[in-house]
């Protein structure tokens, strides 16, 4: 186990190095930040002076090493557009993104589970068809389009929910629901299949023969088995959800990391983008590492690979 862990850690570190370098290079290629900072009538000498004072005329590798060094201490530089620390910006937006992702994830799993169960129980009735249609809808249209349609219906037409922004629970509903829909659809289908399989299996028949009540069968026997595939799927879905969150946050003006990144990209605020990319990549790699280690600990066969 120890050797396995060390191996995984080493690999994760090299990946992180690669990721940070990639982020730095792409950020650098994004454009010249000096132009972001000066007014139209600045002279060439003024621009050169500014470039020097920001350290942008040094060789690229030197700048990268410098950046990495600072990053390890938690200093991700200062935003060119907003003149505040990048790390601080990220720290202030991260909780919002987590709130959105958490709410969406909870909605997707809980509602997905509930809908899957209902679809299995009332198989071939109208609710089964509705769930199937919803699930298909979640996969074939762009998530943000669904979001726009929901906005059109709930916020513009009926004025029941806010169009965008953040504030209370009401502001969270539409973005979380929009983000959750594709995952919810997939979960519902999985759960439905699992439930149907479970309900038709031998041990359920035995349980019924023994005289157990329907709800007890459902809760104690069928549902737990149906939710196994849900757990594995959930892990895979999380990565997708984070990606989609970027667009959803823009549509709903949700003050999270995604919107910060997209705006920073559009404004060529490359230190902010680098910082966001780095933070998210580090999170991903870390989570994957932990999951790998957890699986290996539970299932020794995995270690042999």
């Amino acid at each position, binding site marked *: 186990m120890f050797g396995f862990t060390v191996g995984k850690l080493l690999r994760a570190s090299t*990946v992180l190095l690669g990721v940070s370098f990639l982020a730095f290079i792409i950020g650098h290629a994004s454009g010249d930040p000096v132009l972001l900072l000066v007014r139209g009538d600045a002279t060439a000498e003024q621009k050169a002076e500014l470039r020097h004072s920001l350290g942008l005329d040094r060789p690229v590798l030197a700048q990268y090493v410098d950046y990495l060094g600072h990053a390890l201490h938690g200093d991700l530089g200062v935003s060119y557009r907003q003149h505040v620390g990048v790390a601080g910006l990220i720290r202030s937006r991260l909780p919002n993104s987590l709130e959105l992702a958490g709410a969406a994830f909870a909605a997707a799993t809980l509602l997905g589970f509930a809908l899957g169960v209902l679809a299995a129980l009332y198989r071939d009735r109208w609710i089964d068809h509705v769930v199937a249609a919803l699930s298909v809808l979640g996969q074939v249209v762009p998530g943000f*389009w669904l979001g726009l349609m929901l906005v*059109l219906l709930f916020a513009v037409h009926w004025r029941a929910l806010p169009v965008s922004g953040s504030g209370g629970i009401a502001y969270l509903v539409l973005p979380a629901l929009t983000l959750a829909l594709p995952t919810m659809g997939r979960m519902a289908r999985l759960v439905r299949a699992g439930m149907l399989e479970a309900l038709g299996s031998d041990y359920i028949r035995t349980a019924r023969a023994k005289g157990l009540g329907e709800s007890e069968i459902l809760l104690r026997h069928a549902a737990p088995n149906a939710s196994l595939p849900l757990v594995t799927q959930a892990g895979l879905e999380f990565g997708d959800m984070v990606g989609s969150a970027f*667009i959803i946050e823009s549509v709903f003006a949700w003050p999270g990391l995604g919107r910060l990144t997209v705006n920073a990209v559009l404004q060529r605020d490359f230190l902010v983008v680098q910082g966001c990319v780095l933070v*998210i*990549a580090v999170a991903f790699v870390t989570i994957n590492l932990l999951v790998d280690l957890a699986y290996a600990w539970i299932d020794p066969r995995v270690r042999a690979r």
Partner: protein
Amino acid sequence: MSSMVLTMYRSRETRLGLILLTVVVFAALAAPVLAPFDPGAVDPNARLLPPGSVHLLGTDSVGRDILSRLIYGGRLSLTVGLLAVLISALFGTFVGCMSGYFGGWLEAVSGWLIDVQLSFPFLLLAIFLLGALGGGTVAVVLVLALGTWVNYARIVRAQVLSIKNLGYVEAAHASGAGVLRIIGVHILPNTLSPICVVASFSMAQAILTEAGLSFLGVGLDPSTPSWGTMLNDGRDYLLSAWWIATMPGIAIGLTVYGVTQLGEGLRELLDPRGRR
């Protein structure tokens, strides 16, 4: 081939999907004939008209016909998607082949690159790259290709490894066959089927991703009619001119459904033969 199609035709969903796909592809190909107006023809006096007898699906904020833009937009979105899939399939297959066949440092490096790429949520990488590259059709195609090449690489590599294990390769080597011939005769034909399945799902993903990127403003040039840019156009007009944003969404939905059904159909078809 025809037996394949007939088998797929039996399933109701697949049938519907294939029909939709055929309609969309036909419309895209016949665009110059089918579109009632020039998709770029601006007419400020006819702006923001609701769907009606002259403009079947209404007009946008500068008076362009939505239906015509939808048809030409489909052309662009499908072309971009197809090119992206082709490039990613070729590149992914190549990398998978090489790393599976030769192993060693080649496999290690490509594996590492894949890990690095997968550490970013793809959309983030796409936005980042397009921001740096500046958008435009070529950049979008390349970035979309970046999104799926890994799938091909993995499948092909797995195939190569299993075929290596079966001894064909050693036998062929012994009889003097070159690397290219071995790959071409023994390996590639067996990978074609799973590649096709992956390709259909990649196509669906490419269309959706292009829509998202163009919507954010980092994808295709906003003046070119693509389904994604049309969605962006309609964003500020949800209350006053809902048709601008709604129509492209429906078009995307129908097309992606068709492509996905094609993929599902292919997968079921090839399932008994493959090991997956």
